[in-house]
């Protein structure tokens, strides 16, 4: 086989791979066909990788195979992390994706330098800037999610101006390189500035905004791969990058809508800093609290229960206890559903994965828009570790910092029970009027422990349905 025909054969496998990628995402539309989607994605990627190893340009295999083995050695444990660690794993994989795209761009630059054509220089420059900032940004996000770094937003006065100036500096350096390709020493400076910007982009963002940030970083990682496809004239990279970029972009938009923020608000940093001022004006108002026995009695007397999980459930690792509660109530003939807010947890779909891990059937996990109509017919809404997404002030109080944010209408249920560690305000620092309502019972304690006590009460015959 000649080199040219081998090349054509390889290109053909890339076309097949691109088709496989699209089918993989298409079949992800439902949990029933999703497994098939993953399988075709694996086959498509595998075929493309094997074909590439036969590329006539590849002359030396030893180190490539070692790198592949190292990659698999790192990848498999990262694929086997606990479900509660999925957000940080995802952030880390955005970092790896962006890192490899940036490194390939850098290698291309140094192969061509200093005679880099203007247009190619602009492509490489842009690609390396986006890849580098996504790399450090994702590392910071992963560090916050793993709680190596503080989850609270780190902000200072004039931050946006400083950050934007740093980004502008990276772009000025890139333009200079386009106009004067002989200044090769500017290239590493540009990379360093982009890396710094990535850090500055994510440090001011707090934990509760992670779903948006992680989606946005996903989008950036995708677009940097697509840009790399432009640099290398590799259509399969363009397709994969465009799909990944589009996916991250769609998720970012969904997350923004679910928090009632504009896309520009998110893109230009301001996020994570809103509504931290509201914390001061808290007044002491009476709340009603209940014991596990009382909670168990109320639950066993209900005929329809909606459970609202939040990040607190993930932190307390309470999902398996929640499953026991679900099983017990379902056995009594009580209709139990879960209300999932799009931004509950630390990444899109976080709650669904945790509850699915605990073996709760996915047809009981109901989206915000579909469940909200059911709250008026609900006997008990049980909130486990969620706060701001249930705050009725978002609907009723135009002065509230979260006014306009779509929420779960738990206040319309007949009885509301809230499992919470203390009366401390939620992440956003906003008081939640839900807690002071007549029909609300506060269940103070650790989510896992409290749900466990309710289950114990139910099984020891505390309630007779």
């Amino acid at each position, binding site marked *: 086989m000649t080199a040219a025909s081998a090349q054509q054969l390889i290109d053909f496998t890339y076309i097949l791979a691109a088709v496989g990628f699209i089918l993989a995402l298409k079949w992800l539309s439902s949990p*029933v066909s999703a497994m098939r989607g993953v399988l075709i994605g694996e086959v498509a*990627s595998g075929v493309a990788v094997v074909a590439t190893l036969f590329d006539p340009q590849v002359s030396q295999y030893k180190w490539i195979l070692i790198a592949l083995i190292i*990659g698999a050695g790192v990848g498999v444990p990262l*694929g086997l992390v606990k479900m509660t660690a999925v957000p940080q*794993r995802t952030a880390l994989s955005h970092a790896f*994706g962006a890192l490899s795209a940036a490194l390939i761009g850098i290698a291309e630059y140094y*192969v061509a330098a200093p005679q880099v054509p203007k247009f190619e220089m602009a492509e490489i420059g842009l690609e390396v800037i986006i890849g580098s900032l996504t790399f450090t940004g994702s590392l910071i996000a992963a560090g916050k999610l793993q709680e190596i770094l503080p989850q609270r937003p780190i902000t200072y006065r004039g931050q946006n101006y400083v950050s934007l100036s740093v980004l502008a500096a990276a772009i000025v350096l890139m333009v200079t390189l386009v106009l004067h390709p002989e200044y090769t020493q500017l290239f590493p400076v540009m990379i360093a500035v982009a890396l710094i910007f990535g850090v500055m982009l994510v440090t001011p963002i707090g934990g509760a905004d992670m779903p948006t940030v992680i989606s946005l970083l996903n989008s950036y990682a995708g677009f940097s791969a697509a840009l790399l496809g432009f640099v290398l004239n590799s259509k399969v990279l363009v397709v994969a990058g465009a799909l990944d970029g589009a996916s991250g972009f769609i998720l970012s938009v969904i997350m923004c809508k679910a928090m009632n923020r504009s896309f520009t608000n998110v893109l230009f940093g301001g996020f994570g800093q809103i509504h931290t001022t509201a914390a001061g004006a808290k007044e002491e108002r009476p709340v009603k609290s209940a014991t596990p026995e009382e909670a168990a009695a109320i639950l066993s007397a209900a005929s329809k229960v909606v459970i609202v999980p939040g990040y607190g459930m993930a932190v307390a690792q309470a999902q398996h206890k929640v499953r026991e509660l679900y099983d017990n109530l379902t056995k009594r003939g009580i209709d139990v559903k879960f209300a999932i807010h799009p931004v509950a947890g630390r990444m899109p*779909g976080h709650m669904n994965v945790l509850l699915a891990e605990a073996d709760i059937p996915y*047809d009981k996990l109901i*989206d915000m828009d579909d469940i909200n109509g059911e709250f008026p017919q609900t006997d008990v809404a049980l909130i486990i570790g969620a706060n701001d997404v249930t705050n009725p002030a978002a609907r009723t109080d135009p002065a509230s910092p979260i006014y306009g944010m779509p929420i779960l209408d738990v206040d319309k249920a007949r009885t509301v029970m809230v499992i919470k560690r203390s009366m401390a305000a939620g992440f956003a620092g906003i008081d939640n009027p839900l807690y002071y309502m007549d029909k609300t019972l506060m269940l103070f304690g650790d989510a896992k422990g409290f749900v466990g006590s309710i289950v114990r009460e139910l099984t020891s015959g505390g309630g007779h349905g």
Partner: protein
Amino acid sequence: MPADFVSSLFVFILAAFLGFEVIKRVSPLLHTPLMSLTNALDAIVVVAAIIIAGRHESRLATILGLVAVAASFSNMVGGFVITDRMLHMFKSGKAKKS
């Protein structure tokens, strides 16, 4: 504007449109697996890394290429493993009883 750029742009725009249409239909239930799957697919940059590392144009390019091979291949392997695990956990009420 180079011809390569125009044809890449063409492919990019079509793929992005197709991506929007297809991903819009992904159930919110599966948004976490969606992200890990697109991550794994995106790791196809490993093919570019293999070429860069295998061409041996300079020591620097080879080393950068090899690091990129390891980083992207770990994403490919890890992304598929975790997506697979997650999707195995999603069972409907009927499937669970049977």
